[in-house]
């Protein structure tokens, strides 16, 4: 009964979305407040209805209702409860339902917190959200119904893909979707602004928190996915430039650009038309990502078995959204009033530089990801584009961008003084170059690229701190005064410092793993030590263990240094009983400076085991950096300026440094 309730709620949600996608837009055109108000109630109703459908599906999973085809395909009675719940979105149908849920959540958010938005803008934003919702709900109901029944119901299910039975992956899709779908709100705002023909600072102030929030979620989602790939796939790598990874990376890059250009629109009323374009493109790339993942057109480590009809539907939707958005943009954007003027060397100019490079980076990833598709479509043969391509294109473009990051905040709005900015960063620059030189000559196995990586990372971290020090006049005034200034700083400024420094941490981590990773693949006999990255590693033996729905062989690897035991790693090789599928569970011991990483392979039948050992210097910093960057976003999000609707208290302006 519950599945039918869910199905019914989903159909109702579709009808509500149809109303939400038409009446408010019409009302805004005619200036009819009654019709415009439909948007708010419809958005809330849609959220409740999709929520009911989602809960119904979770319920079917938790209670193992095997009359539902989707549950049969992806669940099993012995699966742990956590994975029964997360298995709800561990498959195509369920993940699309999650997408629709988050979409309606954001729509409801605009309806609930948009009290102080101009009525027509709100109605139009909600109308566009409704249209997007209509597309996705139709997609779910007509091509991927999660509530399809199976008669007769089998006694048990096929279980969830064991690789997905992991806490990291359990929360990766929701976070990623929160990011992807969050860009739908900025998209709706952009389209609404184009329809209204007006973009101003208030509009940008409204768009920024949504962009920031989506960006934080996307950052965390990508980081979690990469972390999962790192420990679960057992290859010791964290990023493979795989099409599906790229699909999430492109909206992130463009979202980062949008984040920065929206600042210019908000503060200086400039770059308006560019900000709109970015908002349209960021969401288009999110949809493109969905299309690439869901259609299976590309060979990817992440590819799942697919149904071409679904791919076609999303492709059509993508064309309507992107094509419609860009057409509207081409038609309306030239009419937008021109914004504030600025010199090329200025804060605005710096942010334009940031945007140019981020957009170019997005373009290179886009070309690398889609070139194989295009070539195949014109009959040019099957090709693939791998990490060497990205190393040759991405890094040369990313380095100047990273080098510019600490300089930007030192430039004033409108007209900046580059020599003065560089003078203030002189010491930081010297330390960074020194760090690079030390890396080049002292660290073993060093390359110019490694030296660049270390230098840029140092430059980013110290440059961010230097900028903070300047704001609070550290050592210029008594320490107590500086601390008072720190407290008075806008949260957005502190968020920026954190995020920029965090970027440096990630760069350091990426450099460390890419350059100094040690890999040892050997057949180990129990008791015979193997030397690995300065450790003496001994396989003490293997034991059989059994989990709720798997059996496993667990190896015991003892790491010694100078005779003393440093750590013991216990990697597992699991065999999931239902799908008869093996997975590798890497064991990782992290010190702050490096990860010790081990996976257990197959037995060779002669008493030995294939073992893969990695020593990954600085690896944890990659994810630490990403988490800190997201934290920076959250801190910035808490800036009182962005809490629209809160009455603005008059403040003494003297302690407030100009931003």
């Amino acid at each position, binding site marked *: 009964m519950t599945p039918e309730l869910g199905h019914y709620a989903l159909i109702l949600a579709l009808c509500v979305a149809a109303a939400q996608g038409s009446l408010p837009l019409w009302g805004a055109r005619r200036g009819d407040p009654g019709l415009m108000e439909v948007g708010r109630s419809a958005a809330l109703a849609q959220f409740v209805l999709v929520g009911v459908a989602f809960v119904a599906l979770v319920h079917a999973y938790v209670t193992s209702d095997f009359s539902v085809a989707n549950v049969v395909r992806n669940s099993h009675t012995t699966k742990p409860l956590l994975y029964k719940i997360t298995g709800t979105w561990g498959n195509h149908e369920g993940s699309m339902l999650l997408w629709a849920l988050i979409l309606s959540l954001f729509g409801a958010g605009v309806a609930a917190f948009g009290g102080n938005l101009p009525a027509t803008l709100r109605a139009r934003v909600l109308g566009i959200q409704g249209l997007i919702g209509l597309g996705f709900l139709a997609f779910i109901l007509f091509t991927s119904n999660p509530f399809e029944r199976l008669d007769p119901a089998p006694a048990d299910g096929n279980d969830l893909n064991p690789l997905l039975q992991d806490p990291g992956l359990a929360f990766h899709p929701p976070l990623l979707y929160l990011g992807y779908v969050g860009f739908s709100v900025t998209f709706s705002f952009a389209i609404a602004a184009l329809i209204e023909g007006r973009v101003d600072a208030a509009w940008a102030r409204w768009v920024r928190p949504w962009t920031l929030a989506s960006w934080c979620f996307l950052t965390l989602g990508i980081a979690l996915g990469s972390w999962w790939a790192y420990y679960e796939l057992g290859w010791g790598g964290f990023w493979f430039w795989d099409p599906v990874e790229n699909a999430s990376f492109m909206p992130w890059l463009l979202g980062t650009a949008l984040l920065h250009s929206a600042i210019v629109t908000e503060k200086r009323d400039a770059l308006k038309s560019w900000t709109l374009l970015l908002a349209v493109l960021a969401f288009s790339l999110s949809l493109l990502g969905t299309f690439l993942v869901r259609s299976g057109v590309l060979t990817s480590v992440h*590819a799942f078995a697919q149904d071409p009809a679904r791919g076609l539907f999303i492709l059509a939707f993508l064309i309507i959204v992107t094509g419609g958005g860009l057409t509207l943009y081409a038609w309306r954007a030239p009419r937008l009033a021109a914004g504030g003027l600025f010199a090329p060397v200025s804060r605005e100019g710096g942010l334009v530089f940031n945007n140019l*490079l981020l957009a170019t980076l997005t*373009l290179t990833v886009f070309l690398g990801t889609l070139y194989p598709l295009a070539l195949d479509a014109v009959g040019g043969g099957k090709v693939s*584009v791998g990490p060497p391509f990205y190393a040759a294109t991405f890094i040369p473009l990313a380095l100047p961008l990273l080098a510019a990051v600490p300089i930007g905040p030192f430039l004033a709005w409108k007209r900046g003084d580059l020599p003065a900015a560089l003078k203030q960063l002189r010491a930081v620059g010297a330390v960074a170059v020194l760090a690079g030189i030390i890396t080049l000559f002292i660290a073993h196995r060093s390359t110019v690229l490694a030296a660049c990586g270390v230098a840029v990372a140092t430059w980013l971290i110290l440059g961010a701190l230097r900028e903070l020090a300047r704001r609070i006049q550290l050592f210029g005034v008594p320490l107590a005064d500086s601390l008072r200034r720190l407290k008075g700083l806008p949260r957005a400024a502190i968020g920026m410092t954190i995020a920029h420094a965090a970027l440096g941490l990630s760069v350091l981590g990426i450099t460390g793993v890419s350059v100094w990773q040690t890999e040892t693949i050997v057949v180990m006999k129990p008791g015979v030590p193997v030397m690995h990255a300065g450790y003496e590693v001994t396989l003490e033996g293997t034991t059989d263990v059994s989990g709720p729905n798997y059996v496993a062989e667990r190896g015991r690897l003892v790491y010694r240094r100078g005779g003393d035991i440093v750590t013991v790693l216990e990697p597992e090789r699991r065999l999931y009983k239902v799908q008869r599928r093996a997975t590798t569970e890497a064991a990782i011991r992290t010190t702050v400076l490096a990860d010790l990483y081990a996976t257990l392979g197959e037995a060779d039948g002669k008493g030995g085991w294939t073992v893969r050992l990695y020593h990954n210097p600085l690896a944890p910093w990659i994810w630490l950096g990403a988490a800190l960057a997201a934290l920076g976003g959250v801190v910035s999000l808490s800036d009182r300026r962005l809490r629209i609707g809160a009455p603005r208290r008059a403040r003494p302006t003297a302690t407030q440094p100009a931003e």
Partner: protein
Amino acid sequence: MTPKRKRLWLLLGSLGALAVAVGLVLTALDDNLVFFYSPTQIVEKAPPADKRLRIGGLVTPGSVVKGSDGLTTTFEVTDTKHTLKVTYRGVLPDLFREGQGVVAEGTLGKDGVFVAREVLAKHDEKYMPPEVADALKKSGHWKEGEPPPAAKK
């Protein structure tokens, strides 16, 4: 700075960035494109030795042999018309199985044995890499919707 000059600067900047990007992309594509070959294509028109390429097909049942060092595996990949011998040193992905589709990246040795540097893993065993599906269709032994040929044995 007049709006006109500002626009000019922006335009020049964007064009510059675009030119650099296109240049980088084109040179990188030239050097780093990895072409896919089915076993039949390799027999018909052998690619130059030492060029990085991808091959794919089904792992011939019974062909997987572990080397004496315990790390090297040799196996045959077939598109049911021709077969290609592949050797790989390292740990095979968990989903590598006889009779299933596989894609490997590496180089073709002078002796005609493909030296794989990477064997692609998959998330899902029902999934057939599109290149493999295509190669099988071309050799005329498999149609969309059917179970893969090796699975019928």
